[in-house]
């Protein structure tokens, strides 16, 4: 292995991580050295804040908090391994297969070992702020809770666990290339659906993994059961840590050594797999086994949609379920709703007629609609030129693009209304009023989202593709939030006042506010789309 190749390649890979999909000049924020600054900040800020904050904790509390801090020390290495694996997979899922198969490293004189070392190093660099924050948090804790004797080993084991995770990511990358090509070849539509389900599962798992409730639960479980799981290699750094805290030196040395051996083994496996699946072949995916062409017959025209509008909606649906970079947009609403539901699930508070369910019923149509409609244009990427070529009017474009948003938002809204009525019932009359408000939020939110998406599209595809610029995203978020608030305010007033403001008054107000706002954002959307279609932006 040549160090110069490893350093050079890891720098290239790290730059590609920093700059993926970006165009224009290289600025300070896209130079690799920026990570040193970020790491330093991630280390120094928690040290400074916690050092001060921990001094104010009274002595009797340190006795109570001591075991929790020990749990953090023990659980940290394995959490870091999991964190790197999950983050690495997230990045990999956004990469296009054609890019992987045409990577320059495939034909340059670089050995599999050199590649794996460089790639793991770039992964570690990319997620090093996670490590820096961990050290920044644990250092003042160690000082306050008399764990300084264990802290240096925890740093070493955490770095080792981080490397372990990076090597496992390399193994998964090779494995994913191989498996997805087999699944696609053999399974067609079934393969696509299974992959979508798997991707959604991964995204939701990632969110759950970093949820404070789950995190605390995991930490205490790991720390209490680590003795029983000693035979699981990923746990070895944590086992070594437990023994260090207990001052049991021989098992500490044993499990530290085993951890190092396991990391080396992962490196070896990753190198061999890289050698075997060096260059992933571009996949030829058969959706149907026969080679005959059957034109689609559209039936939605009965509902006021033209064949072209339905064709666009069908194309949007296929984009959502077939593109791996789009899977996160199915997962995001689930990821956003779960942290709100979890406290309700863990709490013993009686929510009947209370606000959490009402909040969810406003939140779901707002977030689902806005997210799907805002990205509807940007997600086309450079293929957006296909839209420009075709004879499509602005109205057809709006209806075609938003049809899928309306369907998905409608289904998820009805779902959450149903669940909320079971968990936090508000009564059948009020539910109908809420559904009316949800309908206005869905319509207005979708027009707003498409209007924003047509003015601020980001056609960058890939793992960091947002499909709407940051400015556009914030505009949509705040304007959408304000619209949702305005539409729901009369019903909120009705519910919070214990029906003092009756539905007979509040419902017409909702109707009026909803109609006016929907018309206003439709005009905004139409103007944006007309301008968009007249001037190629990608």
């Amino acid at each position, binding site marked *: 292995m040549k160090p110069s190749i490893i350093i050079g390649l890891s720098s290239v890979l790290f730059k590609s991580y920093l700059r993926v999909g970006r165009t224009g000049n290289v600025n300070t924020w896209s130079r690799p050295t920026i990570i040193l600054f970020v790491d330093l900040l991630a280390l120094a800020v928690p040290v400074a804040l916690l050092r001060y904050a921990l001094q104010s904790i009274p002595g009797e509390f340190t006795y109570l908090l001591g075991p929790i801090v020990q749990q953090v020390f023990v659980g940290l290495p394995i959490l870091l391994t999991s964190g790197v694996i999950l983050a690495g997979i997230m990045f990999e899922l956004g990469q*296009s*297969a*054609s890019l992987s198969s045409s990577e320059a490293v495939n034909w340059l004189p670089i050995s599999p070992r050199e590649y794996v070392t460089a790639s793991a190093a770039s992964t570690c660099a990319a997620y090093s702020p996670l490590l820096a924050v961990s050290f920044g948090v644990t250092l003042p804790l160690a000082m306050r809770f008399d764990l300084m004797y264990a802290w240096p080993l925890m740093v070493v084991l955490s770095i080792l666990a981080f490397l372990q995770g990076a090597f496992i990511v390399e193994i998964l990358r090779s494995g994913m290339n191989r498996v997805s090509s087999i699944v696609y070849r053999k399974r067609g539509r079934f393969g696509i659906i299974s992959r979508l389900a798997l991707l959604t599962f991964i995204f939701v798992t990632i969110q759950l993994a970093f949820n404070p409730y789950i995190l605390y639960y995991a930490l205490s479980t790991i720390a209490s059961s680590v003795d029983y799981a000693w035979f699981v290699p990923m746990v070895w750094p944590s086992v070594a840590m437990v023994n260090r805290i207990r001052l049991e030196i021989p098992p500490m040395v044993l499990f530290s050594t085993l951890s190092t051996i396991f990391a080396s083994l992962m490196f070896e496996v990753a190198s061999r797999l890289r050698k075997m699946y060096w260059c992933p072949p*571009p*996949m*030829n*995916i*058969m*959706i*149907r*086994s*026969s*080679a*005959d*062409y*059957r*034109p*689609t*017959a*559209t039936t939605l025209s009965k509902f006021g949609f033209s*064949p*072209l509008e*339905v*064709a*666009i909606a*069908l*194309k949007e649906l*296929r*984009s959502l379920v*077939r*593109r791996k970079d789009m899977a996160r947009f199915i997962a995001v609403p689930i990821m956003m709703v779960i942290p709100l539901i979890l406290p309700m699930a863990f709490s013993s508070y009686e929510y009947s007629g209370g606000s959490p369910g009402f909040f969810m019923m406003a939140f779901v149509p707002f977030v689902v609609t806005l997210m799907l409609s805002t990205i509807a244009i940007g997600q086309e*990427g*450079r*293929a*957006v*030129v*296909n839209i*420009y*070529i*075709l*004879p*499509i*009017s602005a109205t057809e474009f709006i209806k075609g693009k938003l049809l899928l948003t309306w369907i998905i938002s409608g289904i998820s809204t009805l779902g959450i209304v149903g669940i909320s009525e079971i968990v936090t019932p508000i009564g059948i009359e009020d539910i109908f009023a809420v559904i009316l408000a949800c309908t206005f939020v869905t319509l207005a939110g979708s027009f707003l989202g498409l209007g924003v998406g047509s003015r601020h599209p980001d056609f960058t595809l890939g793992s960091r593709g947002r499909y709407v610029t940051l400015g556009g995203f914030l505009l949509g978020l705040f304007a959408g939030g304000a619209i949702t608030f305005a539409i729901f305010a009369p019903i909120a007033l009705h519910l919070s006042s214990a029906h003092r403001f009756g539905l007979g008054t509040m419902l017409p107000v909702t109707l009026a506010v909803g109609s006016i706002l929907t018309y206003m954002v439709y005009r905004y959307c139409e103007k944006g789309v007309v301008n968009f*279609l*007249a*001037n*190629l932006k990608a």
Partner: protein
Amino acid sequence: MGESLLDAIRAESVSKSFGTVKAVIGLNLTVGSGEIRGLLGPNGSGKSTTMKVIMGILRPDSGKVSVYDVDVLKRPVDARRMIGHVPETPYLYEYLTASEYLDFVGIAYGIEPVDRKQRVEELLQALQMEEHVNEVISGFSQGMKQKVAITAALLHRPKVLILDELLNGLDPRSARIVKGLLHRLAREGVAILFSTHVLEIAEAICDRVTIMNEGSILAEGSVQELRSLAGLPGSSLEEIFLKLTGSEDTAKIVEALRL
């Protein structure tokens, strides 16, 4: 070539800038029905921008564009119904199969399912793509994607074809079929605006050639007329092109390279 009874494409005093870069400057261009017009020029000369303006997908800063008297700026959708376009790089919907993509295009042009099936099968068979009809486009080679883009452009029997580097990536058999097809379509009255960097192809296919440089038209006419204009009788289109665009000293550049 059929008689040019009517101007299929008419661009008058078209200018388009991107910031400080003037991509097209005061361009006047007419292409008659049944004519195959070659649009030549060095990289960045404004060919693709001109085509996009004619397609109505880029709004010019000034000037007028019409396709069969339909104002492209005022009625872009009506104009596009008459146009078939193959872009320089076919960015297709990679997550769709070839049949799904062509189906989408067919629906957009309002082609009935029976006619759609017949056209798609005919064209894909001619381009040897019928076996790949239910495969996802992301796995296609550049040439296969180009064949899908060509099929999509021809699906609705357009009256005008705007083709940017049409033969990119095509195998010799398919390239020959496409060239033959262009001649047949021109005989049937289809106006074709065709850009390429391969001057032999332009010489073989085009009735008339327009040479652009730095956003303006340098010369226009049949290859014979351009020979006279350049004062190079008996020379190839390549020699004429290099002389007119002021880049004939390529031999010196090659010599200067220390390889």
